[in-house]
Structures are given as structure tokens and as C-alpha cells.
């Protein structure tokens, strides 16, 4: 049947251009689900676009494990790399900054400006390190809700996120149903599989077994860089796919110096991963990595009762997107969320994109993802 529908034309795209971060500071004590607390809290964030007079056009973007608040634009003329979701956020893009006021904050427990294990405890004058309370995804979004309060926004037009950001998005829809207009979770799931926990713990063990870790009390300048780099290398493999790696690297070799050691970089893929590991340690804190991965492992919408019971609180329409080549958060884990929502009679949609980039597919520009997000936000 020839019943294709003409794709709506997206107007010409622009860039958000130069952006600056801001810090939201709460001097009130912040209580964690675990019972622990912080005397005060900072969340670093960026916004793009303008908040409407009715304050009804705000979109909150939740970042993934190694992401940050900088999802679009550049901070200065010398900055080569644009924000992590620059292709998605900007004038005329699916998350259109001429229509929406976009907020993205560095997550609680992170290390890019928000309060995390590496932050100074004002009560002791020393870093929290392992005194930082046990962290959950619920804590992350509770902190974000304070930021949203401070911007005087009652209800968000949408909450969007991929991976860890997808889990935060789902948690928003569950914990703050009256504040979420719609939600869009990409490459996420209701809980980690045993395999995902296994990979995370292997990464944590790489950090903990690095002598420089020192039970978490390392000098920030001399942290467990080896351990963190190995953790990142391994995690990075889980974000890609066999097919994707094969087509990107195959068995391509570097120009090998035969006179050198046996275990110098020989293959392109080794070089790539080592670079990923080495660059990660310059921007990420090892304790943050431990706390955040553990928060993800603990995340479980099937608990305490059942997935259906947890999701029964949701009222907003949702879109969940799985990616065929994602073996870290596989399609089935995304699908089961929508299956539960539909059992509950909720407005929910599941779409599955065939892309070769594994878990990281949501960070890769594709016309279908573009269409999907654009249509869901404007429907």
C-alpha cells in the first residue's frame, strides 16, 4: 500500500551558540532517600531559549553517566567541541530553542560543578569522599526539582533523557506526575540486568584496586587514574556494538614500531579505547564514578512491589525508545516499560530504532530519531 505521509519539514536549523553555565545553590539541608543528608547543595546547569510568560515551555534534559549540564552550544570561541546533544538542541532542531526553554543540570553526585563526593563539606572543610550519602536516581531528580522550583516553573512541558538520563526521566514521571507534561526515555530500562551490574562492578573494582584510590581519600590531583581509565575503557565497549566497532576499527593497525614492547598499541581499537580512558580521567572523578554507577545498579522500578505498581503513579504521556544494537540496555528492557504502562491503560508509545551504534545510538544523529522527538514534543 502506498500510504506514506509526507514528512513535515523542519525549518532551517541554527545553533544555540555561546552559552554560560549557572549555579543553583540551596542552603537548605538536602535529605537523601537513604537517610543521609547534605548541609547544602549546588547544581550546575545551563539553559537555552526563553521561558514563556506562562512558564509552560520548559524542557528538562537529563544527562547520561558520563555526560554533564553542557548539552548544546560552546562556552567560548576556543572550545572545539559542542555540547553533547548539540545536534538535537537548538533553533529549528527537534528540541527547538525558539519554542522551548531548555534546562540541563549536572547530576547530584556528579563532578562537573554539582555537589558530589569530590565537593568540599562546608562542615569539615574537607571533601566528602566516601562520607557522601548513599545515592539513588530518586535523589538526583529530587535535587533537580529544587532547581526547577528556583526557576519558578510549576510544570515542565517535557522531561527527556537517554541511558541514566532515561532512568531519571522515568523517575520524574513517577515521583512528580503533576509536574511532567510528557516524558521521553531513550535507551534506558526499568532496572539493570545482571550483565550491566557485572560490568559496572568490574569498573568499580578497577578503581578500588588502584593503590592511588586510598579508600577514597585521594588527592584530586593524584587520583586512581589507572583504575578509572580501565573502568572507562571497559564501560565504553558496552556503549558500542560489535557491528559498530567492526566497521569503525575492524583489525586496522597503527604503524607499529617492531622494536618496541610486545604490548604497545598495535590495533586502532586499542588506541581508541586508551584515548577514551586517558581523556576521561581529566574530566571525571573516580568517587563520582563509583557513586553514580552504584545508583544505577540499585535503580529498580520492579521494586518494592512490581513494575506495574511503580508505574501506576504515572499520568503523563510517554515515549520510550529502544535501539536494536543496544546490548547494555537492550530493547526488551525498554519495551517492558511500555508493556506495563499499556497494561495500566496509560498513554505510552514504544519505538525501536535500527541503528548500529549500540547503547550510544541515542547520541548519534539519525533522521528517524529526529522525527520521533520532534513529533512527540509537538503533538
Amino acid at each position, binding site marked *: *500500500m*502506498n*500510504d*506514506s*505521509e509526507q514528512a*513535515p519539514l523542519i525549518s532551517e536549523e541554527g545553533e544555540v551558540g555561546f552559552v554560560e553555565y549557572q549555579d543553583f545553590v540551596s542552603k537548605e539541608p538536602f535529605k537523601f532517600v537513604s537517610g543521609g543528608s547534605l548541609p547544602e547543595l549546588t547544581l550546575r546547569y545551563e539553559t537555552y531559549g526563553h521561558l514563556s510568560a506562562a512558564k509552560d515551555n520548559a524542557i528538562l534534559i537529563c544527562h547520561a553517566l558520563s555526560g554533564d549540564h553542557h548539552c548544546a552550544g560552546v562556552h567560548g570561541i576556543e572550545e572545539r567541541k559542542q555540547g553533547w546533544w548539540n545536534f538535537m538542541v537548538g533553533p529549528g532542531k527537534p528540541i527547538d530553542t525558539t519554542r522551548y526553554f531548555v534546562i540541563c543540570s549536572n547530576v547530584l553526585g556528579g563532578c562537573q560543578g554539582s555537589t558530589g563526593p569530590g565537593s568540599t563539606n562546608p562542615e569539615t572543610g574537607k571533601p566528602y569522599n566516601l562520607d557522601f550519602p548513599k545515592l539513588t536516581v530518586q535523589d538526583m531528580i529530587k535535587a533537580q526539582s529544587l532547581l526547577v522550583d528556583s526557576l519558578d516553573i510549576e510544570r515542565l512541558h517535557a522531561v527527556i533523557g537517554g541511558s541514566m538520563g532515561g532512568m531519571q526521566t522515568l523517575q520524574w514521571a513517577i515521583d512528580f506526575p503533576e509536574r511532567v507534561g510528557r516524558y521521553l526515555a531513550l535507551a534506558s530500562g526499568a532496572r539493570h540486568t545482571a550483565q550491566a551490574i557485572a560490568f559496572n562492578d568490574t569498573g568499580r573494582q578497577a578503581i578500588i584496586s588502584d593503590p592511588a584510590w586510598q579508600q577514597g581519600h585521594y588527592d584530586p590531583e593524584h587520583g586512581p587514574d589507572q583504575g578509572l581509565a580501565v573502568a572507562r575503557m571497559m564501560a565504553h565497549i558496552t556503549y558500542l556494538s560489535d557491528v559498530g566497532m567492526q566497521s569503525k576499527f575492524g583489525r586496522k593497525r597503527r604503524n607499529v614500531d617492531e622494536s618496541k614492547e610486545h604490548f604497545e598499541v598495535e590495533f586502532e581499537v586499542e588506541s581508541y579505547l586508551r584515548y577514551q580512558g586517558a581523556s576521561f580521567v581529566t574530566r571525571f572523578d573516580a568517587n563520582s564514578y563509583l557513586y553514580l554507577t552504584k545508583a544505577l545498579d540499585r535503580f529498580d522500578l520492579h521494586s518494592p512491589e512490581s513494575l506495574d505498581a511503580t508505574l501506576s503513579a504515572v499520568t503523563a*504521556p510517554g*515515549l520510550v525508545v529502544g535501539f536494536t544494537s543496544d546490548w547494555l540496555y537492550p530493547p526488551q528492557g525498554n*519495551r*517492558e516499560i*511500555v*508493556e506495563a504502562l*499499556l*497494561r495500566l*491503560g*496509560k*498513554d*505510552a*508509545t*514504544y*519505538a*525501536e*530504532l*535500527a541503528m548500529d551504534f549500540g547503547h550510544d545510538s541515542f547520541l548519534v544523529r539519525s533522521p*528517524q530519531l529526529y*522525527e*520521533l522527538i520532534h*513529533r*512527540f514534543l509537538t*503533538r
Partner: protein
Amino acid sequence: MSPTDKKRQADFQIIARWVNEGDRVLDLGCGRGVLLEYLKQKKSIYGVGVDIDLDKILSCVKRGVPAYQGDIPAILATFPDDAFDRVIFSRTVEQLDDADAILAEGLRVGRHVTVGFINQGFWVNRMNALFNGRRTVNEVYPKPWYESMPNNPFSVAEFEDFCDARKIVVENRVYLSGDWRSECSRLPNLLAGYAIYDLSSID
């Protein structure tokens, strides 16, 4: 709307007749969500569409119709008994791998089932087979066999036999003549171009 679209959607009114205000409706093989959108407007239903094709899901998203991209048997298996007031197979059964089992699942998940299908016994189809040795290609099915979806056509008589054998209760049946617009009742296996059945299971 083109004449072809009109013809395609002639069955909507009949399908809508059997849907009650506010019903929970599952449309299997929902395509672009046009039927669910129609039922939402006419009967304020809660509707969910299922389709295997991402492009179709994109259209459902645009229409604001909740949709699930995936296999029909897989999604049916996740629903408890009588999860929906009505499960609709509109020009879907012809394309199913295991129609028998999936219709049984439809009757489990839905209190009522609607099946709409093209009558393979329609005289034009018989003539084309007999005199031309070819299947019918028309404005509704414009594509030749090598461009269309796998198709397992059946006739009104064959569907009646099936319902009989499986002890499925036929609550209503409506036949449309060759123009797919006017209803007909005489010699449906020969004269109906399209058939719509309203089914339920015995208990």
C-alpha cells in the same frame, strides 16, 4: 482525502458501530493510527495501536495515538485476559503467520474482536483467477505480488468455517459490496468485496 482513502476508510463507520463510548481498544496492525484517531474522536476511546514498522509508529506519534512497535503475538502475550473491550484486526489477519493462535489470543485479551478482511471469494477475484490467471490489482491493493506484504487471502465462506470450527461466536457480520461502501447481504461469499465481523468467545 483521495477516493482511495475514502474507500479504505469506508469500514471505519461500521467498526465504530460496535465500539462503545470510552472503550479500551487495541488495534493490531494499526498502520498510521487513522482508525484509532477516528474512534477517539467519535467514541472517546482509550486506544493503543500495534505495528511492526517504525514509519507507521512515527505517524501514530504525530496523531497522538499511543502505539507499540513490535510483534503482535509478543505484545498480546503481555496482556491479562479481557484487558481490552475490543481488539481490532483491520486487514491484518491476512498477513499473520499463525492466524489461528493469534485470533485466539485476541479473543483472550479482548472481550470482543473485530475482524475486517477482503473477501477472496468476491466474484471479481474469481474472474481474475479464472480468466486472467492473475490476482486482482486495484486501487486498494495497487502493488503487484512482488512489492506487497506476504498475503494469505481467504473468503467469507472460509472464515465462517473457521469461526464454526473454533466455536467463536459471531455477534454481527456486515458485508460491503465491491465499492466497499454500500452494505450487501445476499450471497456474501460471491458478492461481498469486504467483510467485517464482530466476534466474541463463548464464555
